[in-house]
């Protein structure tokens, strides 16, 4: 079915995911590992940062902010930190999981490159606590890297030193939000900080300027240094440069992580091509899909031909987010799907600010009632208005009455489900049961 020409550079970040024991230093070195770092250390730190700027590498954590620009905003200070966000815990998002478990050295190499470019001597990798195997391998890799001289004092004789600490999270989705992550790293409750003034680049970890980068973002750095920022920027489309991993899940035949060149692939390619998703499970019709994780508004089949770029998706009222694509086939109950997603946010709301703390639970309760056949017709408007009080206007990108973006993430799936499948809601209410139950 596919007629895409796969870029010769691909795969970049995922190239070792298929290699046996790539998490070991030996394998890593035999596949070109730490060459990017060695090259970076020969360059001026500013030049390394320049290459990243030229690469137009967009952050892979969800917001899609250009990494080079983020770095350039770091406030000069004697003490500054680099923190890597490995707290990947949103349902359907599992790209960093693979990178951590299968290619931890690439992350470490990226961290050292970034630290060198930023002049940082202390970096942290905040890794989701539930990644037991990932944590084990990451720590083992870090130990190996220290022994190898790639981390620690006077790296490869360059005179540059950086220490890296792997810190396990304690099981809270909110700690994937960068300011909560910093709070948690400081040993405090994982509560988001208010921006302004707490922009990490100015007032970050321990109130020092801090860069927070995603696992996949830094995993790209060794390649960018080796091949040049221009080579990276030459791939992709518009401002969405290079390639990225899409975590495909839901009712597709071949779920998994696929690294594709940005903009050269459409959702249709990703979901239906044999080399990617391979089509809808049970060969049923596609009902809808979430283009960028459960925080993102849903798309219907009419959006299948959108190219995978940030702009294209944003223009149609959703987001690429963390690159998680979730497919619903026609057997999926949209009410149940939206309820399940709302239940996740309810469980994970940190409780710091009122609208999210109380609203998330209320939305979950209303959705549960509708799904289980106990809804009232007015509940449809009610749930929309409860959502509106978290994200006024229910527009995209959302406005918010909350401190952080977890709050306005909650309405996305609810509003999508109501707008796209209102009849299903009405059927649930009228029939007094879930109409998809067999």
């Amino acid at each position: 079915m596919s007629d895409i020409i796969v870029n010769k550079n691909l795969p970049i970040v995922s190239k070792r995911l298929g290699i046996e024991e790539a998490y070991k230093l030996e394998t890593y070195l035999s596949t070109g590992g730490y060459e990017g770092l060695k090259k970076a250390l020969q360059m001026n730190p500013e030049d390394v940062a320049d290459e990243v700027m030229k690469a137009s590498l967009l952050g892979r954590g969800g917001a899609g902010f250009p990494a080079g620009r983020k770095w350039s905003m770091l406030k000069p200070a004697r003490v500054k930190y680099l923190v890597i966000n490995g707290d990947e815990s949103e349902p359907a998002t599992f790209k960093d999981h693979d990178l951590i478990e299968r290619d931890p050295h690439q992350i470490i190499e990226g961290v050292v490159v970034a630290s060198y470019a930023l002049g940082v001597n202390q970096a942290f990798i905040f890794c989701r606590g539930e990644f037991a195997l990932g944590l084990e391998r990451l720590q083992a890799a870090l130990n190996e890297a220290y022994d190898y001289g790639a981390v620690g004092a006077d790296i490869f004789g360059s005179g540059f030193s950086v220490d890296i600490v792997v810190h396990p999270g304690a099981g809270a989705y909110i700690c994937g939000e960068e300011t909560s992550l910093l709070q948690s790293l400081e040993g405090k409750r994982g509560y988001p900080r208010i921006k302004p003034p707490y922009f990490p680049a100015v007032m970050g970890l321990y109130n020092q300027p801090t860069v927070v980068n995603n696992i996949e973002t830094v995993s790209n750095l060794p390649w960018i240094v080796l091949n040049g920022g221009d080579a990276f920027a030459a791939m992709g489309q518009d401002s969405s440069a290079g390639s990225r991993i899409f975590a495909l899940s839901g009712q597709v035949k071949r779920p998994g992580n696929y690294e594709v060149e940005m903009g050269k692939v459409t959702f249709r390619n990703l979901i239906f091509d044999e080399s990617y998703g391979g089509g809808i499970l049970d060969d049923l019709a596609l009902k809808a899909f979430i283009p960028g994780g459960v925080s993102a508004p849903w798309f219907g089949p009419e959006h299948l031909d959108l190219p995978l770029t940030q702009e294209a998706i944003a223009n149609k009222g959703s987001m690429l987010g963390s690159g998680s694509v979730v497919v619903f086939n026609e057997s999926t109950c949209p009410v149940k799907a939206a309820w399940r997603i709302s239940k996740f946010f309810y469980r994970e709301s940190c409780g710091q600010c009122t609208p999210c703390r109380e609203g998330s639970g209320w939305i979950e309760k209303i959705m549960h009632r509708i799904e289980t056949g106990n809804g009232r017709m007015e509940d449809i408007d009610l749930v929309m208005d409860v959502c509106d009080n978290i994200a006024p206007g229910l527009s995209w990108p959302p406005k918010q009455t909350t401190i952080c973006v977890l709050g306005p993430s909650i309405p996305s799936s609810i509003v999508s489900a109501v707008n796209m499948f209102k009849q299903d809601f009405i059927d649930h209410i009228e029939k007094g049961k879930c109409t998809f139950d067999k």
Partner: protein
Amino acid sequence: MTSSDQTEDKVELDPSKVKLTIDGIEVVVNKGELLIEAAAKAGKFVPRFCYHPRMEPVGVCRMCLVEVDSPRGPTLQPSCYVPADNGMVVNTQSEAVKKAQNGVLEYLLINHPLDCPVCDKGGECPLQDQTVAYGPGESRFIEEKRHFAKPIAISQLVELDRERCIQCSRCTRFSEEIAGEAEIDFLGRGDRTEVAIFPSQPFDSYFSGNTVQICPVGALTAKPYRFKSRPWDLEQVESTCTSCSVGCRVAAQSSANQVVRYLGIDVDEINQSWLCDRGRFGFESIYSANRLQAPMMPISGNLQDVSWPQAIEKVAEVFAEHQLKGADKIGIIGGSRLTNESAYAYTKLFKGLIGTDNVDAAPFNLGSVNSLYGLKTATINEVAESDLIITIGSNLKETAPILFLRIRDAILKRDSKLVEVGPYSTPLSEYATHVNINFSNFSEVISSLLNGGNGSDDKQITLAAELLKSVAQTADANVSVAIVYSSIDANRPLDNLEAALSKLATFFSPVTVRFLPVLSKPNAMGVLDMGMYPNLLPGRSVLSSAKLLKEVGWEKLPTKVGVDATNLLEMAAASKLDTLVLIGTDILTDFYDLELAEKAVANVKNLICIDTHINSTNAKATCVLPALYDAERSGTFTNMEGRVSKIASKVTGPSLAVDDWAIAVQIADSMGEDMGFESLEEIQAEISQVAPAYFGFSKGLNVLGESGVVVPMGSKPVSIERRPHDPIEVPGIASTNHQGTPLYAGAVIPSEYSDENTFKVGSVSMSYFRLVDEFKEITLESKSAVSSGTSGDDKNSKSRPADQDRNICEMVVVESLMDDGTLIKSAATLSEIKTDNVAKISPSLANSVGCHAGDSIKLKLGSAEAEFDVVVDSGVAENTVIVKKLDASKVLYGSNGLLVEVKK
């Protein structure tokens, strides 16, 4: 709120101001001021829950969202969190704002029980009030609310109802940010978040009541008030707390003529809305079963109720005899619980009409009054604004809790440096350079501190000395130093304290040095100001300067300086004193030499006690007169700064109890004398007429600014900008709009009494209210601990402070806030709080005794022995043992001095 043309020009000139528009009204506010406060200046109230003006904003409740124009259009922003900036356009009333407010309130109520009819907060509840004003009429929530077991006691004083909690974090932030004790925190997340204590660690903060006061719902309640009243039945007056010498401003609230609650008032100069639990809950003592209900006299050996005429006649008879002959055979001890007016009345009775100067109301650990009146006094605000703060003596958290909070705040927010010269580690030690002292090494330590640490191998002394030197070397008159001082011991003065203070005053010149005394009895400053001390007369003058008093009827002024408390008791013990008058002092439990006190009580002919509660001393009296107590009496109070503020009555006391000044007047009447006044106002008028330090109150003391007036008054008016207060915390405090501006500051004071006089201590020129003997530079001499004892057992050896074989140590008896004195013992709830009976020793002593933290040790002094739990504290000097002044340690007080043997 100004929008006139002239101001506009000013704004451009003044970089500390910004101009913005709020709801179409242009306002000029300080740069950095929060929008919620800027809105108040525009006359717009923004509803709020989590915001408290005395704490860092957190912006979590989202109630105060307002619309702020931005390049991307108006956005909702928490007005408690966003600082005002030039050109901002803010809308507090837009549809978006109203919908957000409505939404937040509806959210808050989905899990908040509607048990308002049985909730103590109902009727004064910000959640209720703001729901009515800004919220939905009805909830659309039809599901089951969240449930928790309710209420749970999180301390002896505080109960927590987690269902009512709206997670505003005011209480948890107070505990951590203001009190510095994170004993409560959130547990769980989302709408299951609950305030919790740590496992098996109760919320035993001295400041726990503040969390109840600032809770915007009924989640935290205090036992003394639970189910006592409905807010609409409350009446309140603004008064002054008299549980220590800080003099916090309080709202005393009553219902059905019974005091039910004290709340702290936000007065910038003093307590900034906080109170300690002793001050807040101590009022329960007025309803104690031990309260004196009627005059009593022994009838066939037992104290029995008598009528006032009977009692007064008896007392007048005794006093009249002394008036005729033998004015030196009567002595008066105590009085620091009195109002200034009552103290003046007693002083006039004893000194002016009977003619004795044997009056000593000073705390037993004061030493002399020279430093109080001779040194330049710091206000609490001046201490908080100092670059260097030196505390000498007691643990402020125990003796002046709110001063402790203020100093802690100054260190954290202003980065003031702190040198703590004290007998053990305190909660301030972590921010301070702590220097260990005891009685015997004090002079030596101060000398080393002033000599750059020379001659000391103590690293802390060297560090502190360097800090002192660096401040002195700035030689900058804009740099200021505050010295907060007291004795280290609850019972005895610190020898050489005065000399040390004079040395310190000289040392820093020309850097400004100010002193703040921490007096260990509540109105000690006021009653001394009223002359209740040998050689003193009202207004900080001395016997030789009695000119003014004679004009108002002080006919029998003594010429001979009187005898102090210790000597009076010795006279009584030796049957050389006929009459002992005790005013609010229970010498049989409180005096440091209990043997002496017992002998005195046994041997004195007439023991007249004027008290509020029955105690062990007045049980042996020949006449007991019942007096009114806080919330039942009116008058004024003078705190450690010299700040005069009002004490107001709210309820009537026991029907036969009488205010002290009226007791004095009745006695004088019965003696056939005329005091010259019959009302409080007349006393106040007389004080401001004849007491030099109290000159300048043109309408008498009764009219004071709500934050009081510091005496002696300066000749320049003082104006202080009003700070925002928390409108949802103490509703109906009338003074909030007037605080900060002493009404009568700026009054003209005759130059002979003015504070403009300067004098010199060493080479330092200082100004002070000079009517007492000049505060002279005194040489620091080493004195041994034993000399502090009254009839010291010198065999214990001066030259041998420690006996390595027997572990002979110097004992320091320190004050604790929750002691077992009359106030705590008589207050129903506070009396249940257990105080730990500990002895603090240095690591080296622990080593030599062979004990560890948590072990128990025995202290032996003469034949007395007492057992304590060991706390090992590196802030304790070697060969020193610190015990609290509690019943358990009282067996050790006596004439045997301070050297105790420490045994396992």
